């Protein structure tokens, strides 16, 4: 099934991912205090 793309004005999905130290983080915590650019990488480097 094709993923649904997001557009400006849409609510950003909030789900849990891991920090680099292995502890969980809710994505919403990233933008609660200040705007958050999210960069999804497909490779390191």
């Amino acid at each position, binding site marked *: 099934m094709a993923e649904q793309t*997001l*557009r400006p*004005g849409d*609510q950003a*999905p909030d789900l849990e991912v891991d*920090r680099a130290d292995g502890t969980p983080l809710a994505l919403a915590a*990233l933008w609660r205090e200040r705007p958050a650019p999210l960069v999804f990488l*497909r490779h390191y480097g």
Partner: protein
Amino acid sequence: MRGEIGERDDIGVALLTMGKPEQAAEFCRNQRLSYTCLSDPARRSYRAFGLRRGSMAEVMGPALALAALRAAGKGHFMGRPVDDVYQLGGIFLVDRQGRIAYARYPRHAGDQPPAGELKNAVLRLLTSAAG
């Protein structure tokens, strides 16, 4: 990314990766990145943001080779994909209310946003929030 928006205190840049936490940590340490480095090996966040898996042509085709050559000409080198080589990346800007202010879906694995596009989106958002 650093060249695009630098390191600002008024935004919180986060890098999401498909690697394990220790791989994300090593990458950010090696690159001396002060951004928030995150790990999502299950790629749930990639799917939630609508980032699709590309076709073979989109992740290994001539367009990617050309983009890699262009990047190399600027002194940047593409790394080896981690985990799912077909998964495409993407860039988003989310405001403090959790709304998408900017979304960039690449057409293929080497497709980068035009220079200044994200920076301009950040500046527009900060200006509107201050106004």
